[in-house]
């Protein structure tokens, strides 16, 4: 396998021609990652939906879902995928457990203490949801992993009216070698009466299905009543998820408020003002390459809603100017010419 460190990668919307490559990717994905479409049919559906979404002109965020791929600009191979849905609950209500603190007070006994409880909630329904993050070569991944993950937010910064002001990403929780989740054993199993992986298969990784509200507990779950193993698994990320967890944490996402209802994995969430791709990005005009000045490693994304592209580039983007100097390779990968507008944020 060639070292990818110096290869040029570009993130772009998925195309129909990518379907065979996506199908090949799906065969090697580990069981823990549940948001990626697996079958030919679901892949085709996701691709069609993404193409329609990019082509749509929504007034408000609705059921659009944007599917991006990471392409090796050298051999045109697909090195990863990532998606962002305009609203998490587009076809229903998105369910999560909220970490609540219930204060129990007895004035007469002069005792007061806090009890940690999980409440099934639909708070995240209106949020935009990051999902389907997958890198073919996770261990050898360089800056292109951050490019792939954050490109979604750069697109949201380019087209904010297509998205919510709030974003979240659900990370896979911990499971053992047999795919058994301690959190599921203590909770979901009691209601679903089936194994974790079986449940995930049946529900296709979704968290916005009516059957969730039919089956899951409506009253707060008092955490101290759960077995120690299940408590320990709460908010813990599956090792497959460590890379995206790190990238999104650096971006400004917070993990403490919500966890997944099935495996207890962390749900990272943030208001866009807290995200670097929004608050620290700047819109700049592309100028021809220059030499001499200090180069900064940046994520650079096209500022157009269609034919969106994003790359990692060492560019010259002085603080006091609104232009950015890109090299030829970057301009070709982005399909921009001097005078075009791009969005830059430091890596």
């Amino acid at each position, binding site marked *: 396998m060639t070292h990818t460190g110096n290869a040029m990668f570009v993130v772009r919307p998925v195309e129909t021609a990518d379907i065979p490559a996506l199908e090949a990717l799906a065969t090697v994905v580990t069981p823990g990652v549940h948001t990626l479409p697996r079958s030919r049919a679901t892949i085709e559906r996701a691709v069609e939906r993404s193409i329609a979404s990019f082509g749509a002109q929504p007034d408000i965020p609705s059921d659009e879902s944007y599917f991006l791929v990471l392409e090796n600009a050298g051999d045109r191979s697909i090195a990863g995928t990532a998606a962002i849905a305009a609203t998490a609950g587009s076809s229903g209500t998105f369910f999560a457990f909220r970490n609540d603190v*219930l204060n*129990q*007070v*007895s004035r*007469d*006994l002069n*005792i007061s*203490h806090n*009890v940690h*409880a999980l409440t099934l909630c639909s708070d995240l329904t209106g949020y935009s949801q990051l999902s389907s993050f997958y890198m073919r070569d996770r261990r050898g991944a360089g800056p292109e992993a951050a490019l792939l993950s954050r490109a979604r937010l750069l697109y949201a910064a380019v087209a904010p009216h297509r998205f919510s002001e709030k974003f979240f990403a659900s990370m896979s929780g911990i499971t053992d070698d047999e795919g058994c989740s301690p959190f599921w054993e*203590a*909770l979901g199993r*009691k*209601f*679903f*009466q*089936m194994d974790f992986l079986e449940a995930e298969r*049946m*529900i296709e990784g979704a968290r916005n299905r*009516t*059957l969730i509200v*039919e*089956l*899951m*507990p409506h*009253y*707060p*779950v*008092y955490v*101290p*009543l*759960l*077995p120690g193993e299940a408590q320990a698994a709460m908010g813990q990320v599956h090792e497959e998820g460590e890379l995206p967890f790190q990238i999104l944490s650096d971006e400004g996402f917070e993990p403490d408020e919500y966890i997944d209802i099935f495996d207890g994995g962390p749900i990272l969430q943030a208001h866009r003002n807290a995200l670097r791709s929004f608050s620290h990005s700047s819109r700049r005009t592309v100028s021809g390459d220059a030499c001499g000045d200090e180069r900064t490693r940046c994520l650079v994304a096209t500022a157009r809603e269609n034919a969106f592209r994003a790359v990692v580039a060492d560019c010259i983007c002085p603080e006091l100017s609104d232009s950015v100097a890109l090299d030829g390779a970057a301009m070709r990968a982005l399909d921009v010419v001097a005078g075009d507008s791009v969005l830059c944020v430091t890596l």
Partner: protein
Amino acid sequence: MLVVRAIREQDLDGLLALAELVGSGMTTLKPDRKSLGQRVEIACASFAEQIAPAQRDYVFVMEDAALGKVVGVCAIKSAVGLDEPFYNYRIGTLVHSSKELKVFSRMDTLYLSNDLTGCAELCSLFLHPDYRQGINGKLLSKSRFMFVAQFPHLFSEKLIAEMRGYQRADGRSPFWDSLGRHFFKMEFDRADDLTSLGKKSFIAELMPRHPLYVAYLPQEAQEVIGRVHVDTAPARRLLEQEGMHYEGYVDIFDAGPVLQARVAELRSLRESELAIADLAAEEAAGEQSTLVATTRMQDFRVIAAPAHARRGRLALTAQHHELLGCRAGDAVRAMPLNPKKHHA
């Protein structure tokens, strides 16, 4: 010969001596002269009908007439939960079902409730260890149903009895260890002490306010819900014979069952009858034990005698008359001590 009778003020010393033998675990009979004194006072006022029915606390003592000694105690509290909230868990059911997944989960839940507020409570039953033989325990426990049968209008709501919950051999309550402990951060005994000081409702403020799924609890804790302490099993059977039954209410600490019944459901309401006492020269041979009670509230008395009411008349010996404080020609209420055996 033993008689169960309405308590009198001069019984305080005897009651106190009895309470010394009770030990921990019984919250309403602590050997404390002041609180017991108050209780006796209220009980006397109750039998004298000097206080409102809802505030009454009918305390009965069992006396060994030969020795003039108090050897047992039991009580009926007119209404629980009117001064401070009375809490129980109610076992409810929630069904979670998905046609799509073909899953149907029937889940037991624990709801913190005050549903039993206003019910009369059978409580404070204790029999001196030296007298735990023969039918003494039955007489003591069941005498209260004779009182209810005689004065049913005083018990408009249900009658309840809280039973001590299951404990392991080491005295620990699996239910408490799995549930209450997490919310009180104190040992069961300490919680129990607070309860006896009348602070149970304060403790309940610390309990989970939302319904709990029983399935969250460890298997051991699930299994003891509604189960009585080994020592309490006989007492439970006695009450069940009289028409009390478990309807899914349990103690919030140890999950011991609450037995309950509407007054009309009690055996004593159906099977007891009024009769005229006749003087018999000697005890009838071969008769089953019968509970015989007087019909006055003041100085209410109950004995167990081998006798059988026939055509509205009941033959009792002079000694029985003396124990009951009645004379030939007085009305008495009678009921077989044991329910009729129902053969299939």
